[in-house]
Every structure is written in structure tokens, then in C-alpha cells.
């Protein structure tokens, strides 16, 4: 079963990067890899509260991903609330 697991690099920004003291973490995820699984696993690793997890979005390098789509990339972006402008 281990061979079926997928390694995903999760890039972190802003408050998440500060909390992790790193700009990325690596997760091992069973397929299908979805934003929901990434959020739950990251939440465990970074000890995020439910209130914090609901603020997060997942993106690939090109675009934001919807909650139910399967992640095909090996590297994704975990997006805390943005503050541009």
C-alpha cells in the first residue's frame, strides 16, 4: 500500500510559514489527493484550529483549486487569507 501513497510538497506563506518555521512541508497522502485531505493533514502537522482551517485555500502554481477536484501536482500552495491592495 505504501507504494500507492503520493508525496506532496505544500508551500506555505505568511502566517503559516511563520507557524511552521519553514516555507514548505512534505505530506504523504493516499490517493485520491484532494484539497480536503491536504487541509486536514496540514492542520494536524501545524496544529491549526478548525477556525483557521476554514480560512485556507489550495492552489496549484497556475490557479486556485476547487474543494473536490483531485490534485495531480506534486507541489501545491496552501493559501491563508490574502491581504493585497
Amino acid at each position, binding site marked *: 500500500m505504501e507504494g500507492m501513497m503520493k508525496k506532496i510538497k505544500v508551500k506555505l506563506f505568511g502566517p503559516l510559514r511563520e507557524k511552521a518555521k519553514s516555507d514548505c512541508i512534505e505530506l504523504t497522502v493516499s490517493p485520491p489527493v484532494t484539497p480536503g485531505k491536504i487541509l486536514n493533514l496540514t492542520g494536524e502537522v501545524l496544529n491549526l484550529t478548525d477556525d483557521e482551517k476554514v480560512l485556507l485555500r489550495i492552489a496549484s502554481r497556475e490557479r486556485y483549486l476547487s474543494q473536490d477536484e483531485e490534485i495531480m501536482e506534486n507541489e501545491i*500552495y496552501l493559501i491563508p487569507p*490574502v491581504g493585497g491592495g
Partner: protein
Amino acid sequence: MLKITSDPINVEELLRQVSAEDRGAIVLFVGTVRNRTGDKKVKYLTYEAEKEFAENILSQIVEKSLRKWPGVKVAVVHRIGENLHPGEITLVIATSSAHREEAYAANRFLLEEIKKDLPVWKKEVFIDGSYHWSGWNN
């Protein structure tokens, strides 16, 4: 011109980008660092982003605006980096069109989409030494 940059923004350059003889209206939004958030005095801001990723998303935001207002010319530059002090320019959105309505509407749309989706993170550092990440409970 669509750019995420750590260099100071040249407002006149954006104006030139959207100027043309068939443009009867140019709307310019200039965002600057405010010196206060609530009752706290801001010392400086940090805007964090991964340039290529943020520029990808910015392109998509602009494409969305061009689908709604195809005749509008757009130029957007967002500043990133550390130690951006009150009064410094952090965002410029320039839009132009034959008539003012489209330029105003597109400019406002771009600003709201940028605030909602552009992957740039704002850290406000206050005079008392505390700090806050925008939108985050800290």
C-alpha cells in the same frame, strides 16, 4: 503591464501604458500604506508573495475583467517587500476606455478581485512592536 515587484512603483509609467488617442477616460487607483489600523499606529508593512505565482493569478484577474469590459486597457503593479512605510505606494491600477463608465467599473472590479484573490500577504508591524497578518487570527 502586469507586475509584482519589490521596486518602487512608477505611477506615470502605468498612465503611459493605458494612454491612447482613442481613450477619453483614464482611471487611476493608487493604494498606499495607511498609518493606522484601528487604534494601533502602523510602523511599516511587509507584503509577501511568490512573484511568478502571484503574476499568474493577476493575469487571470485581468483576463476576467477584459471579458466583462473588452475595450478597456489595463495596467496593474503591486509592490511587495519589507519595510513599506506609511504613505508609500503599494498598488496601482490604471484603466482606460473611450468613455468613463467602463474605465471606472473595470478599475473597481480589478481592485475587489485583487483584494479577494491575489496571493499577497500583508503583515502590519505596529509602533509598539506587535504585528498582525491581515485576515488571520493572531
